């Protein structure tokens, strides 16, 4: 099978890669680009561990073909902070101890950031339903929801 050449933007950097027609974006991120922050929890779009943002839209990278990334702008967990500077959500997740094993955390952070960009003032109900696509087996979600609400309040205050 001939490989496909893709030019895309990942976390603001122009990136090129070669992929097979049947490879997912998640495979390419993890296996070819050494960006292992996105995780595979199911491979079928049901857990959110692989969440990334493509052109502003939250997607499961396990459900998107790598070849579809041509010309798009992709954001992953690796680009969430700036250098050593954590994003406010990351900071709040630390403060609220909103994680245990941590394997769902990157996907949840990517999803939560996308929510706050769309809606800086979400209700708790909206946070809970927005994150319903991201499974966490450890925490019971409470601290995650509180951390997102708290970040939103802080970011509104700062804006």
């Amino acid at each position: 099978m001939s490989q496909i050449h893709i030019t895309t933007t990942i976390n603001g950097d122009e990136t090129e890669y070669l992929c097979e027609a049947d490879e997912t974006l998640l495979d390419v991120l993890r296996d070819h680009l050494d960006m292992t922050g996105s995780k595979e929890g199911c491979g079928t779009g049901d857990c959110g561990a692989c969440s990334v943002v493509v052109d502003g839209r939250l997607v499961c990278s396990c459900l998107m073909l790598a070849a579809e990334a041509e010309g798009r702008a992709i954001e992953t967990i690796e680009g969430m902070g700036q250098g050593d500077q954590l994003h406010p959500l990351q900071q709040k997740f630390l403060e609220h101890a909103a994680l245990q094993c941590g394997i769902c955390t990157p996907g949840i952070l990517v999803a939560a950031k996308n929510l706050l960009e769309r809606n800086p003032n979400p209700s708790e109900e909206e946070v809970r339903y927005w994150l319903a696509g991201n499974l966490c087996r450890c925490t019971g979600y409470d601290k995650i929801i509180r951390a997102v609400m708290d970040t939103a309040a802080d970011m509104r205050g700062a804006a």
Partner: protein
Amino acid sequence: MSIKGATHQDLAHDSAAKHVTGRAEYTDDIPEPGGTLHAYLGLSEVAHGRIVEMDLSEVLAAPGVVGVLTADDIPGANDISPTGLGDDPVFPEDSVEFHGQPLFAVVAESREAARRAATLAQVEIAPLAHVLDPVGAIEAGYPDVTAPLKLERGDVAGGLADSAHRIKGRMAIGGQDHMYLEGHIAFAMPGEDDDVVVYSSTQHPSEAQHMVAHVLGVPSHSVVVNVRRMGGGFGGKETQMNLFAAVAALAAKKWNRPVKIRPDRDQDMIATGKRHDFVADYEVGFDGEGRIEAVEGFFAARCGFSADLSGPVTDRALFHADNAYFYPHVRLRSRPMKTNTVSNTAFRGFGGPQGVIVAERMIEEIAYALGRDPLEIRKANFYRPGGDVTPYHQQVEDNILERIVGELEESSQYQARRQAIRDDNVRNGIIRRGIALTPVKFGISFTATWYNQAGALVHVYSDGSIMLNHGGTEMGQGLNIKVAQVVAEAFQVDIERVKITRTTTEKVPNTSATAASSGSDLNGMAALDACEQIKARLVDFACENRGIAADEVAFLPGRVKLGADEIGFDDFIRQAYMARVQLSAAGFYKTPKIHWDRAKGQGRPFYYFAYGAACSEVSVDTLTGEYRVDRVEILHDVGRSLNPAVDRGQVEGGFIQGMGWLTSEELWWDDDGRLRTHAPSTYKIPLASDRPRIFNVALAEWSQNAERTIKRSKAVGEPPFMLGISVFEAISMAVASVAGYRECPRLDAPATPERVLMAIERLKRER
């Protein structure tokens, strides 16, 4: 000034900064060396049968395939039974015993190639009759996978006969998939001679090491197993990883290349063990006040095709079939039944929850029969002076439930809310509400007494920095940070000076599984022992060097007091090093006081008990059976918490997981023995949207362990899981309201909306 990161402080998980940036490395994130091969399992598509022929030629011919592994390729023993019963082959030789049993492995240049090739096998199996559930297994005369247990005290027949009231019932209790977000995985690197190093996400590295050695036919010293962190475990990675570790190691040695094996989610759920399903028959005798006189209980468990850990799991179901209540006369029996399903295994609570829920069912039965509040019946039956002996003849010495339940009853305003809910339900609305306050008492210790030991290795380097290694594994529960806090406090240094390293069989040998909630109890004590040894040498050195008495030496925050002088910790260590003081120690701990005679059913299997209570309120739609959890209050006992932030997280997570077990998580096998709920698309764990609308969790801050555990803390991993029962019983109350609370709805678990609706319809008909 005190140090940063002492015990009893809120501290974030030690890897938290890496978790939030995606830089925490899990086994699948380890960079693959060039030439890495990938293995994938081929599974049986028959539940029970004789293997007539296994034709793997098409598999071998598939693109990218390097070879296959079958039972014939095993140089050592083809067995990974954790209890040495010899009933757990890596790959079967003559017969298959469950749908989904691994038959062979394909090894290929890429995971995708291996995965595709695995589907090409032509396996001919002559089917035999199969049995899927424990009741069917008893009827079919299937054997127990391991010896049953009986616990007995008093005169049950007499007690039942003398009781004013008697109720008999049956309850079916579903199993549960672990659904750790990181599935099974093992990555083996071949070394020289017989050596192999396996990176794996296992809760029990020592057992994986021993199993790999056993399968390869080499001594344990040739095998190293490393675990940095797991993406969740919950018991599912205690024995179930052994197969993957063995396959990766076999392939790595055979082809002399690194080999990784990672099943996809469906295969993980189909081929690896789960929580045991039970069918429990009970008979309870009680007086007009609801005081229990006698209990007879019979617990049949679906154990799957092999014993695995079913012995201790079904034992623990009996150990917890009293939950918090005194049974004057009692007989409890288990039947760990063989079935043609995947072998059931450890899962948070380890059989305990299945015992506890039956105790709570009996309470519910009594309450509905007498027209009382179940909480009143609970209180009437708590262990108490003069009524403090368990069915296994251990005395309950540290009972604090009355206080916990009393405080929660008050803070949650249980009585007023219950009344309001009953008033509301009388109005005959479509939405009915329910509330329940249920307690838990959970025995802490491995019931296999020899497991209650742990080791740790502590090095103080000459610059004063400290490296900590212990036998426990980190799966998100915060074990590493807790043990590091113990070490920081022992030396009075800031926590940043203590580095926590991966768990490896090279540093601490013969460890027990990180299980039974015992991680911090055991490993914290072992680490403390190592620290105390090093400190004793340092004190000796100071006395000798300075001519001062031992009581003139004190470890103060970041420094050491030496008679009238004080010097920094790092300087002191430097001086000790120059004076040739040994700055490394191996610590060890074994739990005192415990003993257990299984044949007699008597002893003290548990060092102590952990307690807790939860009050849950739900709304149920009586037209659809759907429900939601409106409010939950929890008061839980962790003794003097080593790290309250971490412990609260365990309580919240455990509760939600327990709620999932009893509500939405349903394992469904079809008649052919095929598991039909084998991915998150069909198997539903709680979501963020299911979190109770109001959720208040508190630790009983006044509690401290009556026993001399590490800093008087208590284990926290498993006990809160059983608090989820309050949701189950609140649903039951809402259902009961449709028939005026005259009848116990006898919901089976999980109470899926479908089951709830059926119960509502049944009660309406019988009304």
